[in-house]
């Protein structure tokens, strides 16, 4: 920010802002935000990926704009302002997806419009973008958006592989694959999300144990 800051340190800070959403504060696996699209549209990898990218686009654009306007918007009407800004970009995404693929638009259904009320976007606008300069806010939003995309893709890939035996529509196991019907049903979303969270919790615990720390849950 200031002139005296060394170049390497500035880059480190930017990298930190970027990786915050991508990994350390991942919206899906750590903050558990935006569960509604996470569970509903991750039936296939394509759906998950496009939903994630659409959300990332809205997130980056609206965070940048919110950050630019942070000194102009009165505190009392900020939420309304954020919503209008977010809704604008959601409309853009909505029409863009209709233009690119109507089948995808039908598959995602109302969840594109519902990006407006996605708590990641409003949360980031309120907690981060309204307090930081545009460059920092957009890098952070990009990290968050990509983190959300990665999370959705992790769910969508597992559900498509087990539920249809394919990834991005490409068959992996041949014609004789037995689809796990439950994986493309709503319960499958919960099962897969739970398994991922279990995996991350186990990983975290293992890291702490290797570092010689005792988690409070461990009773000797």
């Amino acid at each position, binding site marked *: 920010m200031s002139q005296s800051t060394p170049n390497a340190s500035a880059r480190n800070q930017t990298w930190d802002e970027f990786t915050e959403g991508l990994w350390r504060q991942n919206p899906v696996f750590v903050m558990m935000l935006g569960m509604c699209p996470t569970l509903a549209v991750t039936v296939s990898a394509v759906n998950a990926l496009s939903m994630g990218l659409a959300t990332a686009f809205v997130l980056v654009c609206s965070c940048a704009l919110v950050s630019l306007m942070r000194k102009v918007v009165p505190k009392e009407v900020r939420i309304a302002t954020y919503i209008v800004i977010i809704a604008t970009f959601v409309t853009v995404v909505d029409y863009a997806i209709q233009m690119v693929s109507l089948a995808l638009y039908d598959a995602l259904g109302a969840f594109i419009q519902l990006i407006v009320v996605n708590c990641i976007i409003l949360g980031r606008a309120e907690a981060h973008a309204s307090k930081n300069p545009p460059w920092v806010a957009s890098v952070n939003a990009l990290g968050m958006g990509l983190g959300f995309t990665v999370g959705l893709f992790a769910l969508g890939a597992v559900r498509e592989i087990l539920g249809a*035996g394919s990834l991005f529509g490409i068959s992996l*196991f041949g014609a*004789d*694959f*037995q689809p*796990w*019907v*439950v*994986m493309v*049903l709503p*319960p499958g979303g919960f099962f897969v999300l739970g398994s991922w969270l279990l995996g991350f919790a186990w990983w975290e615990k293992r890291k702490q144990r290797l570092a010689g720390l005792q988690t409070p849950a461990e009773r000797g």
Partner: protein
Amino acid sequence: MKNKPLHPGAAVEIRSAPHVKAPRSVEQIMRNVVYSLLPICGFFVFQYGISAAFSIVAITASCLATERFFVKTGTQSGSLSDFSATITGILLALTLPPGFPLWMGAVAGFIAIALGKALFGGIGFNVFNPALVGRAFVQAAFPVAIATYTPSFLPGRFGEFIPSSLAWPLMVPADTVAWLHAKQLDALSGATPLAKWKFDGILASAGELLSSMSGHMAVGPSPVLIILCGVYLALRRFMDWRIPLAIVGSAGLTAWILFAIDPHSYPNPFFMLFSGGLILGAVYMATDMATSPVTPGGMWVYGALIGLLTVLIRYYSGLPEGVMYAILLGNAATPLIERITQPTPFGKSGLLSPKRRATYPLHPEYISREEANAVTPKKKSFKPGKKS
């Protein structure tokens, strides 16, 4: 003046009645349940041959391997030697079709222990019957395979697998209908009596169902045998007799009332009682100690609920069989049932004391761990113990 003890060092143990010594451990109960399941397994193998035997072994092995993994990693209590995983495996195998692909059976066994038991903290902490959790998962995941039954007492069943058993992992099982055609049996003979009644309107006689011995019916082990094994358990007090009786009574009563109202569209109550998995579920699944109420009144309510739900699901839903979902719903209602059926403590009943029910709340750790941290309101008659 000096109260010198007669035998220095000898501790005098003072206890309240009863003074009957009955060493009864979880292992002992579970071992006896396994013993009582052995004749039923034997009958199942006698009905369906080598496929049934491999199914039981594979599913039980999967349950035991999963249990061992979770016990070893220290994430759950219990041990492999308490036989609970063995019971889960055997019961799961008995509820699945004998020709169920072995890899799907292994998945069911893994889900049963991992999701049904280990996730809640191991033996005694599970909310739902683990075997039924496993079955519910494969019912949702592989609805076709789980509805594919084959007729019992086929010739050559001890030398030949049902072709669907040996499907490669993750692959679609072989078509049993074509296999039955080659044996000069029509496809309909592979349907369970309940499916035949529901979808084709063909009613099997209750007497045939009771013995499971006549013809090539696609049924599980004989209800008579299951009841005999259940009576053994009940007589040795390894199982509470109230729950099976309440389930059978409630299901029979509901079916009988409907039959009396309209005998043409509803089958007779005996068909309802002896078809499907009602008897097996009532005797072995619903009586799981961790998932059923402990109060005698609660047991009756619980059983009545399961029986009623079973008949309602069978009549009015798209599924031919409803025992599994009825028991799972009963499991879910168990804490609530216990809450409303608290026994009256001694001295609390009478004209002068208006409260006839126990005034203490349930032990906080009983419902959930989340509530265990909550502050419990202090009542006069409730002293929170620091043990457990």
